[in-house]
């Protein structure tokens, strides 16, 4: 690293701006994740529905969310919709929405697998003791499913965090945006990009390791 002559001062001079950008990235990812968690459940339920009126749109949504690359969703929400006069969004809102919509497809799949992992006997015995379908779902099925859903949901958060780094392409003032501005002014691209990369990677790594820990924790004591 020192072969290149690493100039730390340019980083410490701009550390506040860089860190603000990092916080912004985490914020967008967290809000997008929240949106995905909220949208995912009704999607998963609609996807399991017997009525094709609910099932087909839900499956289409999931297919779209999982099949279209995030970068295209971002461009679509930010540039394409504005051109058609549908709506024009700030980079922040477009970022949250694109992460949330893409994430919702993945989250629906996570809920679906988690729900089908609940043994059939649980449904049957809930019905046998006279619980209504809604009560049974709320107090018996869902709590068990959530337990299975948490580890993959954590992985989804890591994925969305990585996706959130893309948002500087539509001008969200995140760390890479700042790094680019400063790099152009001071002509120290290596220092700035390295600092930005190391910081982002540190955050995603911590999240990924956390996801791994949670995964191990939650698979403890589960019979397979």
């Amino acid at each position, binding site marked *: 690293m020192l072969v290149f002559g690493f100039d730390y001062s340019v980083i410490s001079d701009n550390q506040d701006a860089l860190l603000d950008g990092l916080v912004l990235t985490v914020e967008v990812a967290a809000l997008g994740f929240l949106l995905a968690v909220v949208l995912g459940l009704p999607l998963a339920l609609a996807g399991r529905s017997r009525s094709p009126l609910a099932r087909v749109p839900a499956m289409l949504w999931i297919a779209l969310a999982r099949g*279209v690359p995030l970068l295209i969703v971002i461009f679509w929400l930010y540039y394409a919709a504005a051109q058609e*006069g549908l709506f024009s969004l700030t980079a922040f809102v477009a970022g949250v929405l694109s992460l949330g919509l893409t994430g919702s497809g993945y989250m629906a799949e996570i809920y679906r697998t988690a729900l089908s992992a609940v043994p059939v006997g649980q449904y049957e015995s809930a019905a046998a003791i006279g619980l209504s379908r809604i009560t049974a779902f709320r107090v018996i099925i869902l709590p068990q499913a959530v337990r299975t859903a948490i580890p993959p949901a954590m992985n989804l958060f890591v994925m969305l965090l990585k996706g959130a780094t893309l948002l500087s392409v539509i001008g969200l003032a995140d760390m890479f945006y700042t790094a680019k501005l400063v790099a152009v002014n001071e002509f120290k691209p290596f220092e700035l990009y*390295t600092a930005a990369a190391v910081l982002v990677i540190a955050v995603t790594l911590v999240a990924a390791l956390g996801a791994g820990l949670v995964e191990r924790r939650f698979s403890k004591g589960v019979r397979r």
Partner: protein
Amino acid sequence: MTGAFAALDFGPVWEMRSELLKGIWTMVLISVVSFALAIVGGLILAGMRQSKSRPIAWAGFLLIQVLRGIALYVLLLWMFFGLASAGGFQFEPIPAGILALSLLNSAYLAEIFRAGYEAVPPGQKEAALAVGLPRRTWFARIHLPQVTQITLPAMGNVFVDNIKDTSILSVIGVTELLRESQRWAQFYQLPFEFYTAAAVIYLAIVTLVTFGWRRLERRAGRHLDTTRQVRRSRALIFGIGARSETATAP
């Protein structure tokens, strides 16, 4: 709002079809080459993790964890704008993109291979050796087919993600599908038409690959009696197998 769509004009998209097709071709090339390289890298990393030498196993573990935490966009920016300017050289966009993609995906594949290797019941090995099969035959005829059958669904997920991730290479100037769409969207001032077309094309390709991959899975498991149940449980459009927890790639 209803009037807004009256102005839609997909003519230019059709006119530029040969350019978009070139972009699709680049995308296909990059995804296939980088996936092949990622399989090799994944086998190496998985082998490192299984190694009896402690430091090598540890290095493998560390590499996998770190690579899984790196966002493709971050890696590309760093390589392309940071590293290259410091070293005073330039990356060719396509090789750099292939390198970055295969590097990151090899970590996901390594985890999948490891899990698949361990998922084969130990009784299979014991039984094979007990009936007097040589170890080589056990590995090639008993173990490997089962590992393949187990890992294929998760590998399919990585492949699909890999295809989608090639779109990120547009930021370093690889003229794949998104870059082409972007260029013509700006040229014609028709972002809606071009980005919608790009989204549809990606969706079509991903759907095609998903179905093709499922055929592959069925073929790999054709002699196993579980196949029919497996197939039924995967009856959803996009569930190429349950997403393995260890491999949730972007």
